[in-house]
């Protein structure tokens, strides 16, 4: 159990625990915050595995943007700040969720444990450096990169179109005026 292994296990435990709390918490804001902790821990894990850029992107995009968005969404949907039991699905659904969660996790863990049994590997620090990632993205993965830009554009246009403000009592099939103004 070398130094990085120790660090990895620590970060892994932190990520898993905070993830679990994020998912089972009864206070909405706490869930969001635990999510931040979990994603942060993951960034750490990436660093240990030598993926610098990925760690940075993780921090930047996930922790920075995504979680903030989630918190905004929670606030906009006036989610109850105080602990409420209405967050979890009804009994049957929860049971199914547990079963599904355990089975997905279990089968993945089983396969991976079977495959990676005591496999140790020397981490190449600078494999994940910006230079290599840059060259890789712009040589081998140019097409997905370009496609990604189309995806982002489409997602944003969709988000904007969908969230254009809604007239007070919206009846399905009611047509908006050209500029989408409120009647």
């Amino acid at each position, binding site marked *: 159990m070398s130094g990085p292994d120790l660090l990895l296990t620590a970060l892994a435990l932190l990520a898993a625990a905070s993830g679990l709390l994020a998912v089972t918490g009864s206070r909405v804001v706490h869930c969001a915050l635990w999510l931040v902790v979990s994603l942060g821990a993951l960034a750490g894990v990436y660093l240990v595995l030598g993926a610098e850029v990925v760690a940075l992107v993780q921090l930047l995009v996930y922790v920075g943007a995504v979680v903030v968005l989630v918190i905004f969404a929670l606030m906009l949907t006036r989610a109850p700040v105080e602990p409420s039991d209405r967050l979890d699905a009804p009994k049957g659904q929860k049971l199914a969720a547990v079963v599904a969660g355990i089975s997905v996790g279990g*089968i*993945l863990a089983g*396969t*991976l444990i*079977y*495959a990676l049994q005591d496999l140790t590997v020397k981490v*190449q620090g*600078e*494999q994940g*450096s910006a230079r*290599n990632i840059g*060259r890789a993205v*712009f*040589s*081998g*993965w*140019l*097409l*997905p990169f370009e*496609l*990604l830009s*189309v*995806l982002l*554009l*489409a*997602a944003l*246009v*969709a*988000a*904007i*179109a*969908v969230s*254009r403000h*809604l007239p007070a009592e*919206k*009846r*399905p*099939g009611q*047509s*908006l005026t*050209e500029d*989408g103004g409120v009647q």
Partner: protein
Amino acid sequence: MLTDITGTLTGVPRIDAVALLPVIAPVVALLLVLLIDAVRPVKPLLNLVTLAGLLTAAGGVAYLALEGTERSTACSIGVVVGTAGLSGPSPLPESLSPSDVGFGCSYLVSDLTLTGQAIVLVAAIGCLLLALDGPGAEDRTAHHTLLLATVAGATALAGARDLATLTVALETATLPAIGLIALRRDAQGAQAAVTLLLTAIASLGLLLLGIGLLFLATGSLYLSRIADVLASDPDEKVLVVAVAGAMFALAGIGFKISLVPFHQWTPDTYAGAPLPVAALLSTVSKAAGLTAAAVLLGIGLPALHDAWAPLIGVLAALTMTAGNLVALRQQVAVRLLAWSTVAQAGWVVLPLAASGTTRDGVREAVAASLGYLLAYVVAGLAVFAVVVLVARHHRAGEEHTLEAYRGLARTEPVASAVLAFALACLAGLPPGVMGLIAKVVALRPVVDAQLWPLAVVAALNVALALAYYLRWTALLLATTDQATPRWRLRPAEGIVLGGAAAGCVGLSIGAGTIAGLLPDLLR
């Protein structure tokens, strides 16, 4: 064989623009639409630009098909090796040949690609025309943008030959569609969008886990590379991980074709979404799903045939039977159509269950699937066209039940003739010869591989499906007392109706196109 357009950026591979035309055209159109919307949003202009984008893409496909040579682009062969002066982190030992290190091409224009793209574009043009005047088209710009994005994703998916492009293309084909569903901003649309969104995200998670496992096992994302690694009888560990990865990936794609365990979003989303978008989902999105499955399983994982073929057989049987059984009980037209597409998904995927290990076996199976898909898409478009027309003229709008079709043959002989003919095609009974030939094409590999239980289930499902298709046709010819108003047929809808009907008749007479796709190797 790379054509050279950029060359300025060091190390950036020359992208073969012609090969990528079917993907680039919709994107360019998309940008133009946004530009026009910013400058002066004039409805006919927007329609025109979108249509032009799709037609150029179709032209590109036609050109590539006629040219006949196989083009591959966005490849990373020789980039790192060939670029002088660039020192990679660890320069590749000269002894290694490119194929050793996991290189390959992200995008390949082969018969499979062109057929997939052709089907997608035909369906997209149909859906666009339906959406021009149909419900949910008020917000013209957003609608067209999202539609073009979906088409770009679907066409890219057909050509994707590595898992990264496959994933991104799949998401590009799904996310805008979710946007389209929610575009009408009403409660129905929102719920439908949420349903599809959650299913899509869960499936994306599964797909990515699958890709992670496959990457762990084979060390590369290129499908050709994965196929080679798995073909050279890897050891037990690699095989187990690869199979797990393959299954997760297949599950991830399942929702798009609406195979049984992953189909539950279909009826709710079709009912909630505007009709043209439902048409889009049932044709473009399903075509994209099938091409993804064909690419992933046919090109990437033929070696694991023993794992996925029987399972696809089971899924196909379950999908057919469940789809037909529930469809029998449906009264609302669009829900019946949703369940009918679920049942047809079973038929589309049926040949894959009998692909056999030989390269030729897989090719024939994929060819059969694509053949059936083509027949299904054309017939589906015709049915949707008529349903949209009825929705527009019926007081219950999109929620109209089958009763709205009672006695339609009296007032609208042409439209009901097209609907009856299309339903006969979907049922696979003459006069719908196209459907019959498609069913023969689909059943041939299954019978050839002697999968008797599957073949018998499929045969029984012919009758089950026939039950509700005939019930619908019978309503058309029934006599009714209330007078249905004459229809005012808009040009766009006329084109779709005529085009789809011509397609059905054409494919019935020239049924060779259904049976003879993918003549040479599956690449």
